[in-house]
Every structure is written in structure tokens, then in C-alpha cells.
């Protein structure tokens, strides 16, 4: 609404008044949009700010009834505590996570790239069934898969082995990866390939020189998406790896917490260390990631 003052100063003719009304309306609309966006953004990032704030705060001020949004006494002692405490075993579990995450991701991405290409470019008998299976397998509780996977891994003597966890990760990551990759391949025009093949290139050459370079950003973001999922996975790692020296980061942080009276400073410092790699990767690929997810599932 206009204030009377505004009206008396600026508005003389009716058409001018309409114009101004529209502008004020537009401005208030923009204001509402920003206001709501800021509220949602605060909701979204406040917990992240809280992790950081607590991790750089001294114990004295963490246990302070008066809450401050920034550390009152900036300190690195929480990080020193986590990195030096032998019970945290942070270096070891970091390497474990890195190993399990990379191997299972490389394997999954390699085989699903082939399958995603086939789903995108060929018609073949069983394609519909295959696609539906990949979507509906999401319905199966991971506890059910984990129970029989656990029995299978015991028989193969792969419980308490990183290879057992790698097998489990491969099985849970495949369906989504195939869908995303199919989406990326779908977004590359078929004509490019056909043109190359008309010009005398074999299909393999066409793939190698034209399709792969174009699909590479997509493949890279599937790679990072899967790596993030494996890096963050909890239930399987908790169940399959029961020896301390094999544990991955998400299990180790819970384990570290269980040793003592809960000290939130070191735990939040640990959280920062676990979260940082995945978050950086995420910021790197977020744009591609989203495109792949949506095209894969809706086309």
C-alpha cells in the first residue's frame, strides 16, 4: 500500500498512480520473496554454523547458559584433542573411509556407465523390466538386504573385511547410478553419434571421441555423488565391520562419543573433519548433479 505522503508528493494523474501502485506492489512482492528465502536459508544453514561454532569454542563456553552465536573464546583445542587422542583413531578411519569409498565408487561407475549408455541408446528386450527393477529396488528395506548380505559375507569370510563393505556399497549404489547416467546420455543428441558413424567412424570410435568427452562432466558428478553416499554410509559399516581398526569415519565418530562423558567440542570438531571432504566435493558438482537426477527419473 502507498502511504498518503507518497501519494501527495508523486501522484497527480490516475495513470501515473496505477504505474506507481504496480511498482510498489512489485517491490513488496520482492520483499516478501527475500524475507521468506532468508528464513529458509537460516533454517538450512544454522545447524552447520552451530557445528563450526561449537568446534572452535572452549568447553567452558560450550557449557554456558548464555548462548552466543560466535565463539567467545576462539580455540583450536577441540581439533588438537581429536587429532591427538589415540581413541579417536581419526587418521586410520579416514584412510579406511577413503579406501572403501574410492574402490566401490570406481567399480560402480565403470560398470554403470556401460549400462547407462545401453539404456539410453538401444532398444532391447527386457529393457522395460530392467528399468522398473532399478526404480522399485529402492523400496526394499536396506535391513533386509543387509541381513542376507551379512550371512553371505560370513560364508565368503568377508565380514570384518573392507571388501565385504565394498560389495555391499556396490549393490546399494548401482540402481541410482544407472538412472543418473542414462539421464546424462539422454541429454547428448543422438545426431552427433549418427553423424560420426555416417562419416565412417565405428560405434566405438564415436563413443570414444564424441560421446565420452561430452558425458564426462556427468560421469564425474555421478562419481562424486556415489563417493559422497559411500563416505557417509552408516548402517552397513556399523554392521559389517566390527573391528576397531577397520571402522570408517561415521561409525568411528559414534564410537568415539561412547567412550566418555559427552564433550560436544571434540565431537563437533570430529564432525567438521568428517563433513568437510564431502561438502567440498558437493559444492564442486552440485549443478551437474541436479540435472542428472531429474532427467534420469522423469524421462
Amino acid at each position, binding site marked *: 500500500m502507498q502511504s498518503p505522503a507518497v501519494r501527495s508528493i508523486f501522484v497527480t494523474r490516475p495513470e501515473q498512480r496505477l504505474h506507481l501502485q504496480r511498482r510498489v506492489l512489485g517491490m513488496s512482492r520482492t520483499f516478501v520473496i527475500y524475507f521468506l528465502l532468508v528464513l529458509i536459508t537460516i533454517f*538450512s544453514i544454522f545447524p552447520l554454523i552451530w557445528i563450526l561454532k561449537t568446534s572452535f569454542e572452549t568447553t567452558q563456553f560450550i557449557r554456558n547458559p548464555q548462548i552466543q552465536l560466535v565463539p567467545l573464546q576462539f580455540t583450536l583445542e577441540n581439533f588438537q584433542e581429536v587429532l591427538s587422542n589415540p581413541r579417536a583413531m581419526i587418521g586410520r578411519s579416514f584412510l579406511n573411509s577413503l579406501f572403501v569409498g574410492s574402490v566401490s565408487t570406481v567399480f560402480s561407475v565403470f560398470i554403470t556407465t556401460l549400462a547407462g549408455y545401453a539404456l539410453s541408446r538401444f532398444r532391447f528386450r527386457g529393457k522395460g523390466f*530392467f528399468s522398473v527393477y532399478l526404480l522399485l529396488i529402492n523400496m526394499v528395506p536396506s535391513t533386509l538386504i543387509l541381513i*542376507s548380505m551379512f550371512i553371505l559375507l560370513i560364508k565368503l569370510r568377508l565380514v570384518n573385511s573392507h571388501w565385504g563393505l565394498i560389495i555391499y556399497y556396490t549393490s546399494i549404489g548401482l540402481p541410482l547410478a544407472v538412472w543418473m547416467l542414462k539421464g546424462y546420455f539422454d541429454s547428448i543428441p543422438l545426431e552427433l553419434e549418427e553423424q560420426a558413424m555416417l562419416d565412417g567412424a565405428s560405434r566405438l570410435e564415436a563413443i570414444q571421441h564424441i560421446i565420452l568427452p561430452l558425458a564426462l562432466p556427468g560421469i564425474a558428478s555421478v562419481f562424486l555423488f556415489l563417493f559422497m553416499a559411500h563416505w557417509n554410509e552408516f548402517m552397513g559399516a556399523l554392521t559389517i565391520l566390527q573391528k576397531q581398526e577397520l571402522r570408517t569415519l561415521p561409525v568411528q565418530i559414534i564410537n568415539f562419543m561412547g567412550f566418555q562423558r559427552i564433550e560436544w567440542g571434540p565431537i*563437533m570438531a570430529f564432525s567438521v573433519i568428517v563433513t568437510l571432504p564431502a561438502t567440498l566435493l558437493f559444492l564442486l558438482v552440485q549443478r551437474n548433479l541436479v540435472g542428472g537426477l531429474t532427467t534420469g527419473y522423469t524421462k
Partner: protein
Amino acid sequence: MDPWYRLRKQSTPYLLILPTVVALVLFSVYPFLSGIAYSLTDIKFVGGSANWIGLEHFEYILTGTAGTAAYFLRAFRQTILWTVCVIGGQLILGYLTALLLNEKIAGRGLFRTLIILPWAVPSVVVGLTWQWMYDPFFGVINYYLKAFGLIQDYQSWVGQPNSTIWPIVVVAIWRGLPFMALMLLSGLQSIPQELYEAAKVDGANLLQRFRHVTLPQMRTITVVVVMLTTMWWWNSFDLQRVMSPVGSLGYNSMTLPILAWFEAFQWKHLGRGAAISVISLLVMMVVMIGNARREMKSVQE
């Protein structure tokens, strides 16, 4: 044409999907089917004998009154409540966020990045962080709720046997908002701009344009996203596990995946844990197939 050439050409797609199919059969189809089979046996712990007992577990879980069976019904109700509220909350907030991010305003790239950041945080860290924020003595949530006069005294929100599921529902909505909002946003962006122009020419106001242009155009993607996230959150485990009382059983906010996991791995009763998962799967299947049917019908009409 050379028959060999033709055979080779026809077999290409199969060769390409072969590795994935082999991996799926070994590590997804086989565990799935054998999981169902184990739910019909009395296998307790690995290496123990697995004797066929038919539907005994199912009978025990559905009609029993002691032990796990006593918690099943409550866990089942909690799972329904949990899924409906989490998906409902994510959908409402996700739509709002997507609509806002779809506006052409300065700085929306920054807002978008900040809003989807929670996606990258490991779920264990999410659980721990919110547990710390809900802390009954020094928690920031208690502090602000009291400061704004919304509560009289500090409360312990989570981690007690009688804690309700609502505080964890809030966490799950927070956790799932990025995915929901982004999927809906990409749906909004694929709506042809001409449709809005035409509606404007016809004199439709903002609300009418939303009702008659946006919603029908968004139908497919909304259904797909809701189905997918329903399956995920129905089976979610990490948040509830981290934010619940350690090692205690039968607490108020327990859901089916937690019950199944505890039964199988904590109380060493794999067969019965599998049976709980199978029941949970069957319920989900009925819901999903019913939904898919209705969608098919409405598309045909």
C-alpha cells in the same frame, strides 16, 4: 546381411548391461530373495542352523504379546506417522522453496547453494548435531524457545525412552529439503513460459495461474519425487538410530527399520529381523502399487 554381423549388433546392449546385471543379481537380487527365504526360517545367528518354519515368525510378530511382538504394532504406527509427516513437511516446504528459487531475483544462486548444503552432511553428523542442539541443559533450541517464550522450562527433546518422534521429524524435514526443493525446482523450470503468458492474457491471477498451470504441469515430477522419497524415508535408519536411546528397546519413537535391525543384529535373531523387514516391504508395495494404478488411471482419463 551377414548373420554374424546382425548377431553382434543385437548383442551389443546386452554386453553393455551384462556387468551391471551380474552385479545386481549377485549383490541385490540374490540377497533380496534369500532375505525373504530367511524370514521363513528359524536362523538365529550366522552359522546357526536354518530350519524351515513357514510363517511362524509372521504369526509371532503379528499376534504375539511378548518381546519384539509387543513393540511391533507401535513401531508400525510410528513408521506410518513418521513417513507421512516427514514427506508432507518436505513437500510443503520444498514447494515453497522451489517457487521462491524460481523467481528471477538477484542472488538466487547463492540462496540455492546455501539451502542445498545440508545434503552433503553425513547423516550421522546430522543426528549428532541436532542432538547437541536439542541438548536439555546447554542446547541452543531450548535457549531460543525459552527466550521467545514458547516454552516455560528446558526440555529433553530426544534420547529418552518416552521421547516423541516429532523432534526427529523436524530433523528429517531439514535433511530432505534440499533434494525435494531441487527436484521440484527443475520441474518448475521446465514449464514452458508461454503457458503463463497465455494464462495472463486470459486474465488469470497469481493463484489461478498456480492452480491451473503450475500444478498440472508439475504432476509427473511431484508423483515421482514423492514415491521415491516415501520409499527412502519409510526405510530410513541413521537419524533415528543416532538420536535414540542407546541400546534400549521398545522406546516410544522406534520405527520398523530400527526394530528389524535390533532384532537381527543386536538380539541375534536374523530370521525374525528379516520377517519384520518383509512385512514392512509388503506394506510399502501395496501403497506404491495402489498409487501407480491411480496415476495410470488419471493419465488415461
